């Protein structure tokens, strides 16, 4: 066990002891952090499902690990969904691997523009991506 990782895990674990607040963790890419147990203290694991093979495979492994760690809710969110074929690919993959899909964020040029400018997407003019993430926020808080 790498000491730095262990310290981060202990820090996150300690902060997550507080259950009065909503805590959202932007995890390191991939699955390694989960297998080290960083995800042990969360109650909800959201895995991104972007419609291309390697991304979906990584998400499938994240979801499997999340379930092995007994995270109560392991949920999928489609992202960068451009058309009906993308939506079908994400839905089909989620269904095939038992990942409840709670939403799909459409591909939106506002995301690219915000990334380019280094500005928050949420502060961009009304756009479909933020609309869907807001719906997801309401869903997660209600459930």
């Amino acid at each position: 066990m790498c000491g730095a990782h262990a310290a981060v895990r202990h820090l996150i674990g300690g902060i997550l002891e507080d259950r009065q607040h909503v805590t959202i963790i932007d995890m390191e890419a991939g699955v390694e952090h989960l297998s080290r147990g960083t995800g042990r203290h969360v109650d909800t694991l959201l895995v991104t499902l972007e419609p291309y093979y390697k991304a979906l495979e990584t998400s499938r492994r994240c979801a499997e690990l999340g379930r092995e760690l007994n995270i109560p809710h392991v949920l999928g969110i489609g992202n960068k969904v451009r058309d009906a074929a993308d939506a079908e690919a994400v839905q089909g993959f989620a269904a095939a691997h038992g990942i409840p899909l709670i939403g799909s964020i459409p591909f939106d040029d506002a995301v690219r523009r915000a990334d380019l400018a280094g500005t928050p997407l949420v502060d961009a003019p009304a756009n479909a991506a933020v609309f869907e993430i807001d719906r997801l926020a309401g869903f997660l808080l209600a459930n």
Partner: protein
Amino acid sequence: MRIAIAGKGGTGKTTIAGTLARLMARRGREVWAIDADSNPNLAVTLGVPRDTHADLTPVPRSILQTDPADADGKRKILSVPASDVVQRFGHSAPDNVKLLLMGRVDHAGAG
């Protein structure tokens, strides 16, 4: 509620995490956002003022202490309550979101 967002790099984890944090805060919740990525950029998506980015420091490891309840002495716990950690080391983002940075991790020999 404690939510982690995972997936392959480049699939929008940070965008979703930051946007979700802001929108949940607008719905009246107190939100803490933790950047656990070794290449942290959640501050940008949250809208932490850019002129403060150079001053964004991670939560220091020094607030960990050995858990007295652990016979092996390996388990570490916070030496102060989590809310104190956020108050002292959290960075302010719009909609009253607090950002905590876990710091870059040295990957040499990791795992």
